[in-house]
């Protein structure tokens, strides 16, 4: 194996690890918002590392340029998607798990 292949392997293994963390987090963390942390952060890094690993294997080519675009879009869209889910949770008055003051819950009580 060449050093580049080692790097690619390390990236893919790292990606898999964070994908694993995302899954465990999604299962273990309490409540919508806490779970989103796992779904947005670990999941992003997991995919980013895996895609980067593939790009390293492919070297300089159209394919790796496309993967580069893919990385940018992953970094842009997954926090945006998490934001959309969290926001709709807030709009639906979903309470965060644990001993947490959620400002929107209090407001809604005042209105109702």
């Amino acid at each position, binding site marked *: 194996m060449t050093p580049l292949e080692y790097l690619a392997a390390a990236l893919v293994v790292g990606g898999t690890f964070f994908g694993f963390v995302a899954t465990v987090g999604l299962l273990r*963390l*309490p409540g919508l918002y806490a779970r989103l*942390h796992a779904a*947005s952060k670990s999941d992003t*890094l997991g995919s980013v590392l895996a895609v980067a690993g593939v790009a390293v294997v492919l070297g300089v080519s*159209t394919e790796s340029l496309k993967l580069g675009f893919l990385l940018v879009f992953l970094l842009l869209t997954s926090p945006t998607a*998490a934001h959309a889910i969290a926001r709709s949770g807030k709009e639906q008055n979903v309470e*965060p798990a644990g001993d*947490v003051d959620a400002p929107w819950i209090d407001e809604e009580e005042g209105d109702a």
Partner: protein
Amino acid sequence: MGDNHERDVLVPVGRSETLRRTVTYAVERAHEAAVEAGGSATVHFVYPARWRSFETERANVDAAESLLERTLLWGEEDIDELLGEDTPATVAFESTVVGTNEYVFSPSDFADVIGRYADANGVGRIVVDPSFRPGGSAPLLRSFETELADRGFDVLEAPVTRETRRSLPLTDIGLAEFSVVFASSLLFYFALGGWHVTDPYELVTGVATAGVVTLTLAGVAMKNGVPAVREVGYTLLRFGAYVPILLWEIAKANVALAYVVLHPRLPIDPRVVEFDAAVWGDMPVTTLANSITLTPGTLTIDVSRQQFVVHALIPDAEDDLMEGTLERLVRFVFYGRESSRIPSPLERRDDDGGEA
């Protein structure tokens, strides 16, 4: 809202080619209403601000003030022309800037800000300049006029002929905006296709795709006109410097999260933090919101104009947030080094005498 409700007229003011004639139209309407009711009417010139009250850049503020002054002069001119110099005027004028403390983004945000001023001053009629499109326009977005009409205002579109010189036939898009968006879409298409620029199939599909993208989205993408090349260049350079820092933060975030998630006792301390961010404008707010989500233990739940609602999972996360490192970096990217001097959210909250 008083008996002025029927008579008073509000004119949202922004840089546009047809503003002069819009003012004349508004003055005529107000005059008619005043004569009919046998009293006087007021024309409110309202400038919806795109900047924040503590912005360091004065050029925008000065431009707004001088534009408002000009509309006042134009109004006086028009009423003199209608009545002659000596007759006591039936129409009074007021001018103001609204929305300086908010992040106004979409046509509906602008309609909110204008509508609130109108309600506060008991104005029921709004004369809009068809060339002034605050918040941009796109087939997907409801227009500024529709948004205002929905809020119960009587919306009159000033009958001005649009400048054909500025926008391409059948669209709201100017030639410069069209070219920029079209060229970048086409380049992106070719980049994805592997630069087969000479292949007629790629060429035709590329032009068609870029055309559709441009026609539907240029009104939003370039809603403030085409930015100066130098400005974009500097922003891109600073953004290039920001990316490695962000990637490092993302890496740290994930290690911290992995620790928490894999720890047998799950040592989390979730809480919700609200703070006002000192960033303004579409791109900076989006960048900050997304960066917050990607960095240690924090997740942006909601952004309404200037206020961020953030969910923090790890105890240190809230402190990091209040130190405002990310915020300062985002400001640096979009506004240059000068703007990084604005105090951190924590210091700002202390200044307000809040609980910190």
